[in-house]
């Protein structure tokens, strides 16, 4: 089925889109590039979230907990000892994956709103920690990261695009692969999955780890792009909300849709910029309308149309 997935329309289309996107730097301003660079990282955040929600059926309200862990661990390490950037990023990913386990534990015990809250609380705790441990984290005015991957808009853009494309390919492939099937089965009906001989706990844990891996990696990379990390950009609950909205907007359970949603949000937010405060209002309104009237999301609408035939 993977073979079929590889040549399926969504994949081909996304491939073309990525190739086109790769040529953007040749004719758009650095400002637009910067815009998309961030959008791509958010795309990865949303995809990682969608893996948990759409496939493992776990509603994680704390994606920014994993993201923040990745970004801050990497940033603090660089800030203190300036080891090779790759090392900092690796550390960030590791921290984030440990965070993933911490989140997974309650997830396997409690359901619905309760799990949602534990994840939310995890974010609040991290936020408190960052502010309290200001000497280490820079507190609420943010952490300065001395090194950056590159100071060139184009390079940064290509890195983000490439990273997003690869992550997307991996996550999409994963969900289409045998383990992806098992994960969905476990998420949808644990009893049945168990009766089919699948160790539900094992597969869910794995899903949390994968999700954490990409969230953390994306967070760390983004931190090294901005050369700064602050609660406002990485941890605040509203960041998590943005990630979730992105995924729901693009179409949950589609992985690729998440990217669509994230980019759409950023683009919309941007075009509305001149409206100032109203921009956020309108973006939320649009998102709300999609949630209410097109629950399948942007990509979901297309897919839905196809599946129904």
């Amino acid at each position, binding site marked *: *089925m*993977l*073979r079929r997935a590889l040549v399926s329309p969504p994949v081909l289309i996304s491939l073309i889109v990525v190739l086109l996107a790769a040529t953007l730097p040749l004719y758009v301003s650095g400002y637009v590039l910067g815009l998309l660079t961030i959008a791509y990282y958010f795309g990865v955040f949303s995809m990682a979230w969608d893996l948990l929600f759409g496939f493992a059926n776990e509603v994680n309200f704390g994606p920014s907990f994993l993201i923040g862990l990745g970004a801050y661990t990497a940033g603090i390490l660089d800030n203190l000892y300036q080891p090779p950037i790759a090392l900092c990023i690796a550390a960030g990913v590791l921290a984030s994956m440990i965070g993933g386990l911490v989140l997974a534990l309650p997830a396997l015990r409690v359901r619905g709103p309760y799990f949602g809250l534990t994840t939310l609380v995890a974010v609040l705790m991290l936020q408190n920690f960052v502010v309290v441990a200001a000497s280490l984290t820079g507190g609420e005015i943010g952490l300065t990261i001395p090194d950056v991957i590159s100071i060139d808009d184009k390079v940064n853009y290509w890195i983000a695009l490439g990273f997003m494309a690869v992550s997307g390919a991996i996550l999409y*492939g*994963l969900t289409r*692969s*045998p*383990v992806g*099937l*098992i994960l*969905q*089965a476990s998420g*949808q*009906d644990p*009893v*049945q*999955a*168990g*009766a*089919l*001989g*699948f*160790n*539900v706990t*094992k*597969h869910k844990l*794995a899903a949390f780890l994968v999700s954490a891996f990409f969230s953390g990696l994306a967070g760390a990379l983004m931190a090294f792009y901005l050369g700064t990390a602050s609660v406002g950009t990485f941890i605040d609950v509203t960041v998590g909300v943005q990630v979730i909205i992105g995924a729901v907007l693009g179409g949950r*359970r589609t992985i690729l849709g998440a990217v669509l949603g994230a980019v759409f949000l950023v683009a919309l937010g941007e075009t509305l910029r001149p409206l100032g405060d109203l921009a956020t209002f309108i973006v939320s309104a649009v998102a709300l309308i999609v949630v209410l009237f097109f629950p399948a999301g942007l990509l979901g609408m297309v897919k839905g149309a196809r*599946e*129904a035939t």
Partner: protein
Amino acid sequence: MSAPAAKLEVSGLQKRFGGLTAVRDVSFSVHAGEILGLIGPNGSGKSTVMKSILGVERPDAGSVRVDAREVAGWPPHRIAQLGVGMVFQHSRPLHRQTVLENILLGLLPDRLLDLLPRAAANARARAIAERVGLTGVLNRRPATLPFADLRKIEIAKAIARDPQVVLIDEPFAGLTARETASFAKLITEMRDDGRAVLIVDHNVKSMSALVDRVYAMNVGEKIAEGTVAEVMANETVRKVYLGGALTTAARPEAAFADAQTPFLEIENLSVVYDKAQALEGVSLHVHEGEFVAVVGLNGAGKTTLFNAVSGLVPYAGDIRRQGKPLRGRTAAMIAREGIVQSPEGRELFGLMTVGENLDMGGHGLGDKERGERREWLFNLFPILKERQRQTAATLSGGEQQMLTIARALMMKPDLLILDEPTLGLAPVVMEQISKALERLRQTTEITVLLGEQNVTFALPHADRVYVLEHGRIVWEGDPSRFAAEAGAMYL
């Protein structure tokens, strides 16, 4: 059937939920190439037995052996890996995957790093699909398939794991007669492959054609075991399903004033729950003041029928009250206008006192009238008067059932619908309720539509009886003729 060791062996199985013992000392075994039928009316504990075998429930005592290995208390996936497969009654396929992918799921090993599907698996999946007759729809998505095919997917998934032991829960529920046949064929094939098959269902009849032996349960205990014929002949079984000798007090249909347009008319009623045919072309009527019983095993469609009348489920066909169609009225309206249901699930307000529950029933009445009504009910069900300050949750099952009926009567119903009032009650309690109904029938003009699987309880009150089976009315007539004409199909 003379394999040395049984594939599946259950012995001394015991399971308690809080106070009540759901399963007590159940023992049976299934050999390779054998089909055992596990039957029992609702609440007999058969599904608890099934869950214990699957590892979903952890038995309190006794043992479950698969291929002579003790698996009691193991997690489900390990039991499954040992070769126990399950065909669930409610199919929940992966909606975004094709039929083929759904079957493939059954073929996957429980590994994390299994990223590329094997061609072999693919071929095998197709073979299985071929066998269960899904070849035509391999690349469609479940959402677009009829109910029978969804069930076939479940069977295919089970076969895919090549289990030594197969558990099948109510294989024929929701299937049409023709589909039922093809399913029976699939099941016998499994046996012929040398698997040990355990079918769980309500009664013998549905499976008489294919089982080798039957193990019958009631209220958590074995009541009979043996061949179909033996079990059907068994006295206890007959008593449980048909009751003993009955004295009936039926009034002739002509005796009712509204012979022309009955108070309630149901015509060609059909209900479909996500693709499962719950009711098919059901027609019946109830005259004003009449007491009509609809008997049928759990799952036959009684509750669906009543919920359709109460406006709780969408339906095709007509339901008329005194000639006027009920369609379009909300459930609450129908209830306010006098068609009141005393539901199977009781639906009491657990944390409210008996008194408050009754008041909720009489919310439409003035304070004075409500008071009188309550007094009247208190002398119909004296026990409730003693309990009136107690919260409903603390009542015994029987008291709760009385409260449910009383609460419905508070609404001064023109038609009282009683759904399974005896469910899970001890005989003495049934007796009390039976007495109360008797008095109602004598002292008031009340019209009653009773749904029961316990014939002993239903027939004595009934003026007329309908037998419901797999969503269809299969017999209608005078209660006195029931045992003779309908008994066989009921067992």
